[in-house]
């Protein structure tokens, strides 16, 4: 029974980059939906297109050389891709907020953190300077920064990495957005700080029913925190499932490889498992299924080499794009 309505629905997103060396299709036919108050994880290796997807939702793709060529992004039933720029600006930071990977370079070094948070507040909310100041201090407190009244006048370079990321989060939630896009929020941080930041995000979500789109390459953090996961490979979604289902029984060989390569407690073998080969160059994708050169199932399969499998729903709330996935084949599929 669907009583959580979808907050964000992405359909058929195509994003390309036009470079001197050729056209890079960074995102092809990507679609998923994020429900209200829940965390959706978008997982994949570097270069698979997950960050580009996130930036497309915010329409922050630099227009040359990039271009959103097709698709719909429905946010509360409005297509973000069709909005005029000024309406999109009213949504950014206000209804959908985004935090980024590198907190040091993502904050402007010449302004205090207070000034940067207040900038967001005063842009979207009608508050006097004093009210904005108080709200900023409140937000800083919420994200766990001690002595916010003093620290609000500090500069980014005076703070540690973990603190800066908290400031970024504070900036993002200051206008109480319905959705937060977190692009690799913990990759640049120490492991202990990672856990703190992720817990903070959980807590904030619980308090305000905010949806989170979590972009990461680290499957480990996904397992505990997300409700649904999409695994991306080479610009396409390979598998989309509920978190528990994905971890218990992954259908796509890529997901299987990723899970197998994670060391876990009780791991006794001498060598870590890897997926052979490397991620393909977006300018030169392999034919057929993009994963086939590295796939233990499909590397010799003629069909995998020539025909690309589309993303199909094989079970309730489970989609895969693999010829070998259980329940994938349809009677009128070509057989080679």
């Amino acid at each position, binding site marked *: 029974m669907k009583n959580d309505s979808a907050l964000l629905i992405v359909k058929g997103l195509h994003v390309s980059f036009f470079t001197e060396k050729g056209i890079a299709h960074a995102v092809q036919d990507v679609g998923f939906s994020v429900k209200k108050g829940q965390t959706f994880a978008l997982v994949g290796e570097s270069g698979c297109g997950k960050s580009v997807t996130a930036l497309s939702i915010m329409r922050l793709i630099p227009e040359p050389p990039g271009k959103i060529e097709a698709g719909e992004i429905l946010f509360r039933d409005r297509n973000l891709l069709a909005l005029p720029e000024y309406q999109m600006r009213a949504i950014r930071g206000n209804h959908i907020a985004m935090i980024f990977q590198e907190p040091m370079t993502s*904050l402007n070094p010449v302004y205090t953190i207070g000034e940067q948070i207040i900038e967001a507040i005063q842009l979207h909310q009608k508050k006097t300077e004093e009210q904005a100041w108080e709200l900023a201090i409140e937000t800083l407190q919420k994200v766990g920064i001690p002595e916010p009244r003093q620290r609000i006048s500090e500069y980014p370079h005076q703070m540690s990495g973990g603190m800066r990321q908290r400031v970024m989060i504070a900036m993002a939630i200051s206008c109480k957005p319905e959705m937060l896009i977190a692009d690799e929020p913990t990759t640049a941080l120490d492991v202990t700080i990672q856990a703190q930041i992720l817990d903070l995000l959980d807590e904030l979500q619980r308090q305000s029913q905010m949806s989170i789109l979590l972009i990461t390459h680290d499957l480990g953090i996904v397992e505990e925190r997300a409700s649904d996961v999409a695994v991306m490979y080479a610009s396409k979604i390979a598998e989309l499932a509920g978190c528990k289902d994905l971890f218990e029984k992954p259908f796509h060989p890529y997901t299987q490889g990723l899970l197998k390569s994670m060391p876990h407690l009780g791991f006794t073998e001498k060598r870590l498992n890897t997926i052979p080969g490397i991620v393909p160059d977006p300018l030169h994708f392999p034919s057929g299924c993009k994963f086939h050169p590295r796939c233990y199932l499909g590397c010799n399969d003629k069909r995998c080499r020539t025909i690309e499998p589309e993303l199909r729903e094989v079970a309730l709330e489970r989609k895969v794009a693999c010829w070998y996935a259980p329940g994938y084949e349809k009677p009128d599929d070509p057989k080679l």
Partner: protein
Amino acid sequence: MTTYIIRRLLLMIPTLLGITIVVFAISRAAPGDPVSLGMGPGGMMDAQRAQDVRVARMRLYGLDKPVHIQYATWLWRVVRLDFGDSIKHHREVIDLIKERLPITLTLNIISFIIIYAVSIPMGILSAVGRKKFLDRASSVMLLMLWSLPSMWVGQMLIGYLCGPPLNWFPPAGLSSNDAGTFPFFPWLADRLWHLVLPVFCLTYAGFAYLTKQVRAGMLDNLRADYVRTARAKGLSNWAVIFRHAFRNSVIPVITIMATLLPAMFGGSVIIERIFSISGMGLLAFEAVTTRDYNVVMGIATIAGFLNLCGLLLADLAYAMVDPRISFEAAE
């Protein structure tokens, strides 16, 4: 912050001393001296008499004492702003400088203001505009402007714009010959008319350089992560450009001030020579040619002092603008 200023001012003193030592050493170490030059071949007088005159003159100018004594006496007087007399002009050096300095300063300050006022918007505009071809072309044009030799530009301008048939601008001087009789506004207009070409020659190179710097800085900063964050907050394009990217680009632009000032003084020498403007540059040139020690030392000291002030201002401005630089940790 005041302690920083005081510290920097104190640091200026040894530097200033160093400058004076350098210039003093050079001028004294060179062959020849002003008395011999002033006397010429001396073929008129017989040898003994010439020798007497020479010794008397040397004593008059204090040139017969050992070098370090000369330096010490000179330094003692300089502290009281007494640079001695010009051997050529037979006037006090400080008077000469007081006469000529305002002219050079006016020229340089006007150029400075024009450079900054025009370069910054141009730099920002050219960074924000999109066309790739225009990008490349404007970069090359700016470089071409920067490569034009100033004496060539000055001479060409004089040759083509000042003589017949165009007669658009006067070729020399700061005021027309009968300007003393003009009432104020026509006098001012005449002054400005005379200033156009020299100021242009002083300005175009600095303009090209600064525009390139602003443009490069803006291009870099517009690509920065924090600009992406600012956009993600929903800021308009203009707010992003001015409040975020430009505010960061300003930092290197200020440090350029420090190098621009000394360079302009050198440029003044050439421009004032070409346009026959009696400012510090021309005075310096004449003094060097005639081995007028006192004037040379005076100009070197004053110019060095002004340059150091410029450096100090630039450092101060830099520390104020970039919060990453604290006043305690200089450089």
